[in-house]
Every structure is written in structure tokens, then in C-alpha cells.
């Protein structure tokens, strides 16, 4: 399984670190739809989700020099930023945004690497399966933490269950997912 599609992502990361703006386009072609899906899942608002995605890509661009692949892949880095931006907005912490001036430049769509796209689809299918295999309570609890940005204490309040129950659900749920994915070679 290609996981984070390291070869292509690594190439994009190297381009980003050289200041090559076409790398952002390539990254957008690969993960723009996924990033928006993630932000939308958190915010349930297209406009706000697109703002979070924009901020995520721009942040990757601005901070590419500090990117260290040994600490995680480019995709995960991008998605973690987009997630955090979206959760900031969800929790009412979105920063005021300066006006953005648009020009009329059109950008041609990039050509995505077909194998990378296939590998990503396969990987995502396995991950969805791992998530769907979880008991409903564990899945909902993990979802509130990851997509809702809630702490364990807040989850306990929202689900009206003891804190210890929440702790058990997140621990068992994530460990089950991990075991499931390890068994299928998705994660090491």
C-alpha cells in the first residue's frame, strides 16, 4: 500500500521547499477534494470549509521550508492543518481575514499520477472499513474528538456518559482501528 504516496508527495515537498508554486497546484490536484471533504465534514458549511482549505494550503506553502518528512508525510501534514483550521472555525476562533485580491488568471488542471490516485482510493477504502467496523459508540466518540474537536470531558458531557466510558471508547476504538489496518498492511 502506498500510504502517503511518499514518492510523489516527497517530490512535491522538495518542489515546495524550492519555492516552486506549481507544487502547490500539484498538491491541490492530489488532495484538494479530500481536504475540502475533511473541512466540510467538520464545518458542514461549504464557504467556511473552503476558507479552511485555502488557509491550509497557504500555510503549507509558507512553512514548507520547515517540513520534515521523517516526522510524517506531506498529506498528513496538510490535512492536520486543514483540520485544525476547520476546528478553529467550528469553535468560533476563526481569525479575521484580509481581503484577497483575485485576478482573472486561469490555471489549467494538473495531471494526477494515476497509480497514486488508485493507491489512495484503496487505502481510504480500508480506513473507512476499519472505522465502520467499530461499534457505534466508539465510532461516534472518536468522531466527536477528531471531527468535533472536543475534549474527552466535553464528549462525556455531550454523550451524557461518564468520563471513564469516553476514555475507554477512544482508547479501544483507536487501538482496534490500528490493529485492523496493521493486519492489512495499511500502517506499520
Amino acid at each position, binding site marked *: 500500500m502506498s500510504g502517503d504516496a511518499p514518492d510523489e508527495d516527497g517530490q512535491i515537498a522538495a518542489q515546495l521547499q524550492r519555492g516552486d*508554486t506549481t507544487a*502547490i497546484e500539484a498538491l*491541490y490536484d492530489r488532495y*484538494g*477534494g*479530500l481536504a*475540502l*471533504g*475533511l473541512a*466540510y465534514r467538520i464545518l458542514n458549511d*461549504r464557504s467556511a470549509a*473552503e476558507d479552511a*482549505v*485555502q*488557509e491550509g*494550503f*497557504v*500555510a503549507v*506553502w*509558507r*512553512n514548507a521550508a*520547515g517540513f520534515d518528512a521523517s*516526522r*510524517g508525510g506531506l498529506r*498528513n501534514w496538510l490535512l*492536520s492543518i486543514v*483540520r*485544525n483550521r476547520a476546528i478553529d472555525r467550528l*469553535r468560533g*476562533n*476563526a*481569525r479575521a*481575514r*484580509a481581503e*484577497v*485580491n*483575485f*485576478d482573472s*488568471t486561469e*490555471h489549467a488542471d494538473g495531471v494526477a499520477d494515476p497509480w497514486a490516485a488508485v493507491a489512495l482510493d484503496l*487505502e*481510504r477504502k480500508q*480506513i*473507512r472499513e476499519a*472505522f465502520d467496523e467499530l461499534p457505534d459508540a466508539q465510532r461516534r466518540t*472518536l468522531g466527536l*474528538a*477528531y*471531527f468535533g*474537536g472536543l*475534549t*474527552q470531558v466535553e*464528549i462525556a458531557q455531550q454523550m451524557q456518559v461518564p468520563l471513564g466510558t469516553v476514555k475507554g471508547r477512544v*482508547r479501544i476504538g*483507536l*487501538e482496534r*482501528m*490500528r490493529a485492523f*489496518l496493521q493486519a492489512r498492511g495499511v*500502517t506499520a
Partner: protein
Amino acid sequence: MTAMNHAEAEEFLVAYALDALTGDERQRMEEHFRSCEEHRDAAAELRATASLLALTVEDRDPSPTLRRRIMEAVSAPPSQSGAFVPLPPTRPPSTPAERRVARPRRWSVRPAYLAVAAALLFALGAGALIGRLTGPTASTVAYTFHGDATRAPGAQARLVYFKDQQAAVVAATGLPRLASGQVYEMWLIKDGVPLDEGIGSSTNGDLAARMTGDFSQFQQFAITIEPGEQRLPTTMPILLGNLRAGS
């Protein structure tokens, strides 16, 4: 802050990986990681698994303008950077008290200060930044900060603020070397609230950055060493200086 013991940390590992701890809990965990490689590694593995939850969502088709907005933001020359381009946090806030103060920031310095900035930054060995700065000199305020005598002896930072453009460049040298996974994180302090101004992770103890904002509203500048970018400092500054008393 009460130290977290091994058994307690074990219980919090998964929630840490999911960013589901309160600020105090997370801070205690990160303190624990300093002395517990086993849990540090376990947390990293669990975080990698947690990050896969992002892949359970369905793709959505962005609007036709989103690509253009992004490319506009990354391509805009500094002199016309209307783009909103702050550095990203690595994790969401855990409590309302931790949330950052909202304010617009821009990270592009108008290419206006080559002469001053070049002299400053070349002197500090951060000449790579200079290529991005061009244009006429503006009124400036310069500050020199020294590293903490214990945590960063010999470290020095030079910050030059260009008043009319509300932009600054900063370069630091002689910072303590980073361990694996650590970053330098810069902060501006306003009314006691530290605002994340970005990270660096050079291996040679140097750090250079550019920032924008009205520095008259900030009282201090600081650099900490963190285990990845943080919302709030989790360690004492290795370098801290007052902005309003600058030379």
C-alpha cells in the same frame, strides 16, 4: 503543574493522539514525554493512526474559484499580499482559555527594506531571507535580544520593525540545537497572551523569519523550543525581550 506519572500517562495516550485532552492535561503529557521515550514513541504512532480518520471522509468538489484563491495567495508578490497567510497551528484549542486572540496577519514583507534588512540579517548569517526583501528604506525600530543565560547562553536575536509597513524581520543565531521532533517557536506577547508567530527547525541553531502586524500592540518577543508547533508555549523561553523599550 503536577507531574504525570507513567500509569497516568498511559491512560491519556490515545486522547493525546486525538487532541482530546484539556490544555493542562496535554501540557503534563508533553512534560512527561521529555523523560519517557516509550510514551513519546507510542503517542507518535497513535497520532499517525488518528490522522487516518481524515481519510474516512468523502471528497468534495471545490468551487472553481478555490484553486485560484490559493494560487493567488501563494503567488502574490509581497508588495501586494492581500492574502491571509498565517502560520498554522498543529492542534486545535482544548479550552476556550487557550484560544488565540483573533487578528489578521500577513507574512509577506513588502519588498521595501533591503538595505537595512540585508545588513542586519547578513550580519547574523541569515542572508537567505534577503532575496525576498527589496525596495526603499522605511523608518525602523531595531531590537537586540539575548538568550536566556541558562537555557540559551550566547544566543542572540535581532528584530527590525518597519513601522510604516507594520512588518518585521527577525534573525537569531546561536540557539540551542534541537532534539528530534523539536522546533523553535516564536511568540509575540500582547497583554500577557502569547501569539504563535511561527516555527523553525534548522539544525544549525539559526532562525530567520518575517512577520507582519502592528508591533506597537505587543510588549514582548520570545522564542521557545517546543515538541512541534504549539498553541501556547509549553516551555520557558530560551530568548525573551521587550519590544517597547527597543533601541
